[in-house]
Every structure is written in C-alpha cells, then in structure tokens.
C-alpha cells in the first residue's frame, strides 16, 4: 500500500532530491542540465563573435549582456517586453479558443471539418503582409489589427495540431466518453482534450513561437499609434540606429521569455499531465 501511495508524496519527494548536492544528482535535474547547455551556447557565441570581430553585424555575448542590462535599466526594455507579452497573450488566447471551437465543431460535424481543413490549407501559408490591408480596412490601426495578425499566425497551425490530436484519440476512450452520455462541449473538454493533450501541447508551443515571430514582425508596421511600443518596436528602433548590441539584447529578451515559458510553464504542465499520465515519455 505505502509503495503505491502515489500522488501524496510527490512534493516531498522532489524536495528531497533538490536538497542533495552531488554532481550526478544535480545533473539529473533538468534545470541544471539546461543551465549548462545555455552556458555552452553563450560560450560558443562569445568565441564566434570574437573571432568574426564584426560588432555591427554580430556583437559578442558580453556586449549583448551589457546592452541588455543597460536597456533594461534606462530604456524600459522590460516594460516594452511586458507590453508585448500582454498583446501577445491576448491574441494567443483568442486564437486558441477560436481554434478549439472550430476543431470541436470539426470533430462533431463532417462538413465543418471540410470547411476547417479547406480554410487551414488556404490561409495557413499566407504571410501577415497579406492581411495588412484587410486588417486596416476593417479594424483600423490599433491593437485590433495587430491582434488579427496574431490570431492568424496562431490559429491555423494550432488548429492543425489540435485536429490531428483529436483524431488520434484511441477509439476505446472515445467510446467510453460517449458511453457515459457525454456530448458536445463536455465530450470535448472531458475526453478529447485530455486524451489529445500531447498534441495540443505541441500545438501550443508552436503557436506560442509563431505568435512571437509575428508580433515582432508586425510591431514594425502596427501598434505604435499610442505612446509606447513593444519589444518589436524596440528592436526595430535599435536596428534603425545601428545599435546591433541592443538589437541582440531585444532578441535575447525574446529568447529568455521563450526559455522561461518552455522550461517553467510548459515543462510544469507536462510533468503534471502527460508525463504523469503515461501519455508521453
């Protein structure tokens, strides 16, 4: 009984592992391994940049780090990043919800699925530039247009991943859900979503990345109607002033946010869900 007493001891157990300090144990800790990898990459960067000796195109890691600190201190780069993150999260959330609604419709109604697959095949390859005129015409120059572009960049790939995940749910688990009388949204939420969680998570990661790519590209065109701009605008401005170390600092900020989201949020969700449930190794 005590050996199988799963769940309860989890927190305690982890804390024990964390307490010890032997190198082998430390190495087993994901965070530690990641730090080592990051340090390695930083070292490679530094050496490559020193060797190229071309700070206008490729500043060193240390220069970038200094520019980062400087920009964070005096330029409010972190506030710009925060502003970007807010807009991004808004667009991301809208896209995810919309995609889940569409995909739920698609698994329930074959015609909706045809429509969704057609729309995805059509719109997914379109670059943001294609949407600009329409976004401006219908939504003006503000955040709404930016959100449209963001939603476009996240919606289709996430819908593809989610639909594929839903369609891979093992037959028996579908039958179990329907056997208990689950239908419509509650069937999706209580059966398909958890069963397809590995694919959903991979779709969420891909969507997250593309939201960033698009936001940074789109902030150059949009969304600076008000006083400040986001991180994309910071990068663009630095680039226009040939402050390459600041451009890299802005990109490093994107990278850091990406790492935090991946290592803290997504890892946490994975450990708590798909890994714990044996749905993913």
């Amino acid at each position, binding site marked *: 009984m005590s050996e199988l007493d799963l769940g309860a001891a989890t927190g305690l157990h982890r804390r024990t592992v964390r307490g010890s300090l032997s190198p082998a144990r430390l190495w087993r800790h994901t965070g530690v391994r990641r730090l080592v990898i990051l340090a390695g990459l930083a070292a490679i960067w530094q050496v490559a940049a020193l060797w190229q000796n071309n700070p206008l195109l490729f500043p060193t890691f240390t220069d970038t780090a200094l520019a980062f600190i400087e920009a964070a201190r005096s330029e409010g780069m972190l506030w710009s990043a925060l502003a970007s993150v807010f807009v991004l999260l808004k667009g991301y959330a809208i896209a995810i919800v919309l995609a889940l609604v569409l995909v739920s419709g698609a698994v329930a109604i074959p015609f909706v699925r045809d429509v969704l697959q057609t729309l995805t095949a059509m719109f997914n390859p379109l670059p943001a530039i294609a949407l*600009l*005129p329409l976004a401006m*015409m219908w939504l003006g120059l503000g955040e709404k247009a930016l959100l449209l572009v963001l939603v476009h960049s996240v919606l289709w790939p996430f819908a593809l991943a989610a639909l594929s995940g839903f369609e891979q749910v093992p037959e028996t688990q579908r039958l179990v859900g329907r056997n208990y009388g689950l239908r419509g949204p509650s069937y999706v939420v209580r059966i398909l979503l958890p069963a397809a969680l590995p694919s959903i998570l991979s779709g969420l990661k891909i969507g997250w990345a593309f939201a960033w790519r698009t936001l940074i590209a789109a902030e150059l065109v949009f969304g600076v109607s008000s006083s400040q701009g986001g991180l994309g605008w910071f990068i663009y401005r630095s*680039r226009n002033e040939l402050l390459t170390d600041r451009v890299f600092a802005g990109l490093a900020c994107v990278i850091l946010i990406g790492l935090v989201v991946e290592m803290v949020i997504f890892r946490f969700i994975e450990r708590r869900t798909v890994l714990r449930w044996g749905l993913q190794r």
Partner: protein
Amino acid sequence: EGTIRIVEQFGTLYTPFHVMKEQKLVEKHGKALGLDIKVEWAKLSGGSAVNDALLSGNVDVAGAGIGPFLTLWDRTRGTAQEVKIIGALGAQPNYLVTNNPNVKTIKDFTKADKIALPAVGVSVQARVLQIAAQQAFGPGKEKQLDDITITLPHPDATAALLSGSTEITAHLSNAPFQDQALADPKIHKVLSSYDVLGGPVTPTFVYSTVRFKAENPKTYKAFFDAFREATAWVDTHKSEAAAIYVKAEKSKLDPAFVEKVLSDPDVKYTLTPLGSQKFANFLADIKAIKTRPASWKDYTFDDLHNDQGS
C-alpha cells in the same frame, strides 16, 4: 472637422512632425481658427502600409516617399480617394556610398559589386539609380545596373557596408544612414540624388485626400499652417530640433550627430516640392505610372502653387 489623424515614418526628415507634436502646433493653429482640434499620431513603417492606412480611411494625413505617393496619386486620380501633396518634408540628398576604393562613378561598378537599396526596381532609391544609369549609359540603359542591385533595408545595408565583410560594396542610402556610413574613412560618396535630378530633391511628402481637405477646410488649414511653421522653425533651429528629435524618438544617437545631419548644407527644410516632376516623368517614361503630370502642381494642393517648385 475637429479631428486629424496623421501617420509618420522613421527618420530625421520627419523632424517637423516631432516639432508639431512637441509644440502642439496643430492645436494652436486650430484655436486661431476657432477650432478645438484633436490630433492623433500614428507611426507605420513602409510606404505601402502608409498608403493602406490612408486608403482604408484610418488616417487623414500621411507621410511617405515620392514613389509610393506618385503611385497612389496615379491610381486614385479622378476617384473619391484622389490624393495630393500638402507639402514636402524637406530637401535631402540620397547618396550612393561605397567601400570599394576603385569606384569613382557608377560606370566603375563591376559584377563583383553589389549595390544595396530598399526594394530593387521600385523604391525611390532604385529609381534614382535607374535615372543615373540612363544618364551614364544612355537612353534605354536605365536597367544596366539592376543586375547588381540587391534588396536590403537601410540599417542592414549600412551595417553590412561598414563591416566590409559581406558582398555588399555599395548602398544607395538615406539620412541618417549615409551620414553614419560616411563618418567611416573607408567609405566614400559616388553620387548624390541632387546630381542625378539636377538640383535639390524633396524625397518625402506629406499628402492627404482631396476629399479630406474639402470636408475639413479649417482642420486642413490648421494642419497646413502648423506644418509650415514647424518646417520653418526646424530650418532655423537645428540644434533645438535635433534635441526634439532625440527626445521624440527616444534615440540613442548623439544629439550632436543628429544636429550635424540636420545641418548638412544640402539639407533644407521646405514645403515646396523639388525635383519631383523629373521623377514623375521618368516613372511615366518607363510606364510605372499611367498619367504623365503636366506640372508638379497637378498633384499638389493649391496652397503651394505660388512656390518655385519643380
């Protein structure tokens, strides 16, 4: 009436706009006309985006290069959306700069060179180079150099040129990038757009729709007066203007450097279109626009018709 939405782009040429913003000149001139004007400023990058904003009715006044303007004017002529120039943002040369010591004139370029410019074939810079090629190699040879041009945004092109470690050996540039490049002794000027177009050129214009002016005459007048005042002020207060620029753009550039850019003897802050008709003629010659304007006044509001434009 009472609201005006203005869209600007990035660069020192937009300094009059910063001054208008900073000194609330539009509001001031509006009050003089008995009007409380609400001014909204937006910033976009790229002439296409600016034109889209104007066409979609999201802005009333736009600032963009002569190329995007003439294209839009050509496409909207005779429609409800017809656009005309309110005024130029100032005369400023575009330099062709190179780090290849062998290049003295554009005839010296070889296949080994690459000339960077924004939007091969269609940008203002590309047109200037084509006109220069026509002058250098003869009629019909305007595309002589197109094969060695390459599309690259100004910042990247400047960085590439300065670093000297890429294939880019030349750049048809813009302020302040050309000034930054020329600060490096390895880089020299091959030609200026002023040489090509035979005198000062105003490369960037502020324009609006005919309808906006018709429907909002007072607001328009307030803007025009403010614009004129700001432009004149910048032309005479280079160092204060530089400070305003640095502040407005949260620029990291040295204010002294900005002042130097603004004070370049070739640079003149004026509303009067200069060199634009030659440009329009060239576009008409190569059929990039369908209408050949009889005069620069065809595409300019009548407030400036008494000026010595070209």
